[in-house]
């Protein structure tokens, strides 16, 4: 007999970011909370926008390569390679095989380092108090040592050139790479023991979020997120570039599309990358590492689109050249940018704890998103 007038509740509007202790960079997400449930998600990006594309139009190609490192700052080699691939396709030149192999080795090493970094951040976001994050940074130190030896820089390498790479390997570098692979395998076992089958970790990741195939293709999601939804798609196998067709490796795919699967796909990709690096090191031919090209390159007039499989998805470069020494339009299609657009739908109707975990599987690098 009591009338049930609907209890008026108001939603609380909370800002996550742009500065926050979880390590995703300057991402600002404004959420409306109804208790612990997220009702509305509104991302605001652009805090790291540096007008890279305008700068590209005013720089020579070598300068563009140096600047593009800063886009995906965790995976320097990928950005450089994609611009070099686009320019080489326009100019229709062939890169010497030793340079291709070196590019592949460095890209796969960077992929390993990226996925380890994701592992560290994922544990930290779920609350294991920086343990995983600091262990991940320790692995990255080993990677930085290798990379510093060949390119001179740790983080922004500026190593790939149009027509090849910058410098040849030093003595013993290839052995160091193999040692890194062995060490990485040993440590992966330790990491899997610590985190992967931990009860709490499973409880926080299994059945949290669901990416379906149709939804992922609709939103243009590529990379590990697409593979965890069940689409076996990897540009290294399905649209091969460089010398990837000469290596044997698998594409790990899972079916459920939850946090656990995204984690699993990335961990398995590390194993596959180690395989590729080992094969590349054993097969690398001797020879020149660079085409004979002038320092300021002049691709002919035209436009092309080149894409590679970056650690977050399809990294593409749309290059329009007007025959001069500077690109007329160089657009980087950043995978994190395209993937991140989907959080308005994906993160709705989740609890806050799940919200953080799901944001972590996007693995956004704000340099790439904002450029």
């Amino acid at each position: 007999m009591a009338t049930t007038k609907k209890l008026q509740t108001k939603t609380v509007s909370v800002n996550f970011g742009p500065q926050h202790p979880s390590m995703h960079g300057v991402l600002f997400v404004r959420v409306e909370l109804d208790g612990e449930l997220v009702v509305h998600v509104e991302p605001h990006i652009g805090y790291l926008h540096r007008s890279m594309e305008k700068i590209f139009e005013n720089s020579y190609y070598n300068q563009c390569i140096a600047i593009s490192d800063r886009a995906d700052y965790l995976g320097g080699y990928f950005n450089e390679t994609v611009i070099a691939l686009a320019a080489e396709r326009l100019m229709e030149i062939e890169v010497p095989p030793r340079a291709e192999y070196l590019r592949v080795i460095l890209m796969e090493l960077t992929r390993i380092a990226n996925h380890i970094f994701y592992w560290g951040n994922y544990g930290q976001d779920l609350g294991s108090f920086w343990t995983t994050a600091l262990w991940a940074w320790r692995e990255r130190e080993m990677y930085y040592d290798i990379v510093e030896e060949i390119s001179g820089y740790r983080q922004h390498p500026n190593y790939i050139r149009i027509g090849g790479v910058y410098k040849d390997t030093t003595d013993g570098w290839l052995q160091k790479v193999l040692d890194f692979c062995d060490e990485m395998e040993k440590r992966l076992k330790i990491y899997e023991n610590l985190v992967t089958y931990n009860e709490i970790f499973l409880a926080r990741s299994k059945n949290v979020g669901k990416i379906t195939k149709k939804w992922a293709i609709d939103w243009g999601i590529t990379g590990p997120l697409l593979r965890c939804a069940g689409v076996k798609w990897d540009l290294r196998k399905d649209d091969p570039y460089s010398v990837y067709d000469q290596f044997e490796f698998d594409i790990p795919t899972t079916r459920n599309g939850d946090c656990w699967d995204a984690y699993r796909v990335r961990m398995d990709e590390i194993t596959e990358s180690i395989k590729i690096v080992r094969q590349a090191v054993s097969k690398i031919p001797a020879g020149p590492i660079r085409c004979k090209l002038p320092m300021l390159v002049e691709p002919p007039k035209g436009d092309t689109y080149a894409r590679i499989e970056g650690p977050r998805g399809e990294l593409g470069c749309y290059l329009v050249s007007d025959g001069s020494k500077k690109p007329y339009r160089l657009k980087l299609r950043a995978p994190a940018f395209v993937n991140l657009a989907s959080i308005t739908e994906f993160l709705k109707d989740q609890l806050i704890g799940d919200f953080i975990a799901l944001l972590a599987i996007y693995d956004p690098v704000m340099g790439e998103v904002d450029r």
Partner: protein
Amino acid sequence: MDEQTLKTEEALKSIKSSDFKILEQKINHGFVDLYVDKKEIFKALETLKKNPSLRCNNLHCISGVDYVDHMEVVYHLYSYNLGHKIALKARVTKEDNELASAYPLWKTADWQEREIFEMYGIKFNGHPNLRNLLLTDDFPGYPLRKDFPLANNEEWLLEDTQTAKDYGLPEDLSELLKTNVKNNGEKKS
């Protein structure tokens, strides 16, 4: 001229002129470039997505380019099943700068079209939320156009209407600016 582009050209022959009119078609480094009139862009995208011999279900990149007398919007499409690579281009001009949005077909057009809007000033009709994405909401001008300068955008310099006296500084600042470093900072031997 590899076999994939031949297959794509073969498949493109199945497009009737009632769907949309291809103004120009050429092969461009592995992609098939199609030029369409901007009024038909939505029909073109829809046909390319739904036509059973084309089935381009992946729109992976939308870019804008500013050629000085006109601007172009380039849609790069790919088919997961059949492997077609198509680049669809539409021309707009500064005065006549409206296009239909691809959002109803692919949600991935959301942020990419917003970025083109704020950088080039091309409006997309039918977009749910067309406002600035990377730049501030009140940013003047369209940065990636060719007539926008790279630096020294004077509208953004803050005007300082107070004189030195209002800050408590002397009118002639040269005394303050003298430093104590002698010999241009070289060490005295």
